[in-house]
C-alpha cells in the first residue's frame, strides 16, 4: 500500500496529518503487552489531555493578560523572557513556593478538599469532547448529559471552599455562587436541548456528524447558521460566561466587593488550583459550544478540509476563548439582583421559546421550493427576534441612559 499523501483532499479520513495522532497512539500502546493495551491507551489519553490543557491554561493566562492590556492600550506582561512568554513559568514558580496558609478556624478537611475536587471535576468534562475526526477520549452514548453532570458538580466544590474558609466574605461568595450557578444552569441546559432534539442524539460525535456537509461547498451546515441555532448559541454563550464565573458575571469572586470571595482564604498552590479550574471550566464550556453549535471539528468550507480536523477544533476553541477575554475587557460586573433577574426573566423564557423555534424548524424540514423556504426562514427569524425585542424592552424598562449632571 503506498503511503498516504500528506494533503489528501479527496479523502480527508486517510490523510497523514489527520491520522498522525492515531499513529502516535498506536505506537505507544504497541510498546505494552496486549493485555495492557486498553489501559495504556486510556492512560495515554488522560496524560495527553492533562498535559495539553495544563499548558493551554498557562498560555491562556498570558494571552488573557496581554489581550486585556492591549484593550486598555498597554502592553501587558513583557518582561519575563522574550515578549513576556515565560510569565506563566514565573507565576507557577511563585505560586508553588508561596506559603500555604490555612485559617485556624477553617474546616481543615473541606478546605483542603475543595480545590482538589474542583480541578478533578473540571478535568472530567474534557473526556467527552470530540477534538477531531478520530479523537474522542471516551465515546459515550449520553456524553452531553455526562458533560453537564460533571459541570453541575463543580458548584459543590465552590460551596465547599466558601463554607470551609469560615469567613463571612467567603460564605457570602459561596451563597452568591450557588444562586448564580443554579440560575444559569437552567438556560444553559435549555439552550442545549434544541441541539439534542434536532441531532437526535446525546452523543457528541453524533452531534458533530449532524453538522457535516456544505451547501455549494462553502456554507457549512453548522447549527449556529440557523435561526434557532444562532439564538441558542448566544444563550449558551451567555450562560457559559455565567457558569464559568467570568466577567461580567464574576460575582462570586468579585475582587472589589468580596475580596475574591471563596478564594479569600486560599493561598499558594491551592489558589493556583482554583485558577486552573476556572480556566479548565471555561475551556471545556467553549469546547462544548464549538461541538454543539460551531460544527465541532468540521472545516468551514469543503476545500479547506485538507487542514486536519483537530486544527479546526482548536482554532474555533481559541476563537471562542478570545471572545471570552474580549468581553472581560469590555463589560463591568453585574449586580446580584440584575444577575438573577437577567437569568429568570430573560434567558429562561428565551430558551423555552427557542425550543419551540427549533421544533418548528424540525417540523418544517420537509418544506421545499424557494417560497416555502423563505417563509420558513421568516417565521423562524420572527420567532427568535420578536421575543428578544419584547423581553429586552421589558428587561430594560425604566432604565434610561445615564445622564451626567456635572461631568462634561
Amino acid at each position, binding site marked *: 500500500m503506498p503511503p498516504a499523501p500528506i494533503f489528501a483532499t479527496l479523502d480527508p479520513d486517510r490523510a497523514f496529518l489527520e491520522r498522525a495522532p492515531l499513529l502516535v497512539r498506536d505506537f505507544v500502546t504497541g510498546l505494552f503487552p496486549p493485555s495492557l493495551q486498553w489501559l495504556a491507551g486510556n492512560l495515554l489519553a488522560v496524560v495527553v489531555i492533562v498535559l495539553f490543557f495544563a499548558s493551554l491554561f498557562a498560555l491562556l493566562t498570558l494571552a488573557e493578560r496581554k489581550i486585556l492590556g492591549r484593550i486598555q492600550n498597554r502592553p501587558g506582561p513583557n518582561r519575563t523572557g522574550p515578549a513576556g512568554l515565560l510569565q506563566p513559568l514565573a507565576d507557577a514558580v511563585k505560586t508553588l513556593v508561596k506559603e500555604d496558609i490555612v485559617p485556624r478556624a477553617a474546616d481543615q478537611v473541606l478546605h483542603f478538599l475543595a480545590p482538589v475536587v474542583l480541578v478533578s471535576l473540571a478535568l472530567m468534562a474534557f473526556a467527552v469532547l470530540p477534538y477531531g475526526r478520530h479523537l474522542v477520549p471516551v465515546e459515550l452514548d449520553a456524553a452531553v448529559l455526562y458533560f453537564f453532570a460533571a459541570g453541575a458538580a463543580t458548584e459543590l466544590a465552590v460551596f465547599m471552599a466558601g463554607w470551609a474558609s469560615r469567613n463571612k466574605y467567603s460564605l457570602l461568595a459561596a451563597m452568591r455562587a450557588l444562586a448564580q450557578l443554579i440560575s444559569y444552569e437552567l438556560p444553559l441546559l435549555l439552550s442545549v436541548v434544541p441541539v439534542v432534539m434536532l441531532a437526535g442524539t446525546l452523543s457528541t460525535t453524533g452531534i458533530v456528524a449532524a453538522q457535516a456537509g456544505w451547501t455549494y461547498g462553502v456554507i457549512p451546515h453548522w447549527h449556529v447558521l440557523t435561526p434557532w441555532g444562532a439564538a441558542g448559541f448566544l444563550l449558551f454563550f451567555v450562560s457559559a460566561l455565567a457558569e464559568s464565573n467570568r466577567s461580567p458575571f464574576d460575582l462570586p469572586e468579585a475582587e472589589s466587593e468580596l475580596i475574591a470571595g471563596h478564594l479569600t482564604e486560599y493561598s499558594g498552590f491551592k489558589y493556583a488550583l482554583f485558577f486552573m479550574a476556572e480556566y479548565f471550566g471555561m475551556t471545556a464550556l467553549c469546547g462544548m459550544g464549538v461541538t454543539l453549535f460551531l460544527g465541532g471539528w468540521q472545516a468551514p468550507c469543503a476545500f479547506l478540509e485538507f487542514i486536519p480536523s483537530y486544527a479546526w477544533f482548536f482554532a474555533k476553541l481559541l476563537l471562542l476563548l478570545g471572545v471570552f477575554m474580549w468581553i472581560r475587557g469590555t*463589560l463591568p460586573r453585574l449586580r446580584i439582583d440584575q444577575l438573577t433577574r437577567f437569568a429568570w426573566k430573560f434567558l429562561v423564557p428565551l430558551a423555552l421559546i427557542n425550543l419551540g423555534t427549533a421544533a418548528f424548524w424540525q417540523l418544517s424540514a420537509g418544506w421545499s421550493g424557494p417560497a416555502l423556504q423563505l417563509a420558513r426562514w421568516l417565521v423562524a427569524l420572527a420567532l427568535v427576534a420578536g421575543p428578544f425585542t419584547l423581553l429586552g424592552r421589558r428587561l430594560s424598562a425604566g432604565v434610561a441612559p445615564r445622564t451626567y449632571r456635572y461631568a462634561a
Partner: protein
Amino acid sequence: MLGSGIIKGLAVTAKNLAGSFHDPARYVTQEFPEVQPQLPENSRNFPFLVADDGADPMGTLRCVACQICEKECPPQCIYIEKSKDKKPDAAGKLQLYPAVFAIDTSVCMSCQICVEVCPFDAIKMDQVFAIATTDRFNGLLLNREQLAKSNQYYHSIHPTEATEVDARLAAERKAAEEKARAAAAAKAAAPKPAAPPPPQPPA
C-alpha cells in the same frame, strides 16, 4: 434594542486592541528603566539637603541643625545630632552644623512639612523615586552624605522655585550685610555704646 450598548462597547475595546499596535498615540505605556519619565517640575517625593557648593557638600550644608524639622516631622523619620563646634556659613557667620543627619525613607510619608518649616531653605524635596533596595533597614536609612545635593542640582529639578530661593537668600544676605555695615558705622560714630546691639536673627 437590548444589546446595542454591549456591541458598541465591544467595538470600542476592539478598536483599542487593534489601535494599540499601530497607533502610537493610543499606546501610552513608557518602558520605565529604558525610557526615563519626564517628570513635571513640581513633582516631588523625598527630602534632600541643599549644599551651596557641589564640590564640598559636607562643608557647605545650609542646615544649621536647628532641629525644627526633626520636631515637626509627623512620622518622626528625621534624626539630627548637633555638632560640638561651629563653622562659618555662606554669609560668613559662625553656625552649628549637623554632625548626623539621617532620614528613614521607609518611614517618610513625603508630606513636605520639613521643607515648609525650615527657616534656612536647607531641606528641599527631591524627584528621585526609584529608591528600591535589597536592604530594607540600612538601604533606606539615608545619611548626611547621601542626602546632600548641590544647589545646581536643586536648580536642575525645580528651576523656578530654586531661583526664588536664591533671590530671597541673596536679599537676606544683603540686608544682613547692610545692617552689619550700618551697625559698624554706628559703632564708629558712637565711640562708647552702652551695650552691644542685640544679635540679629539670621533670617
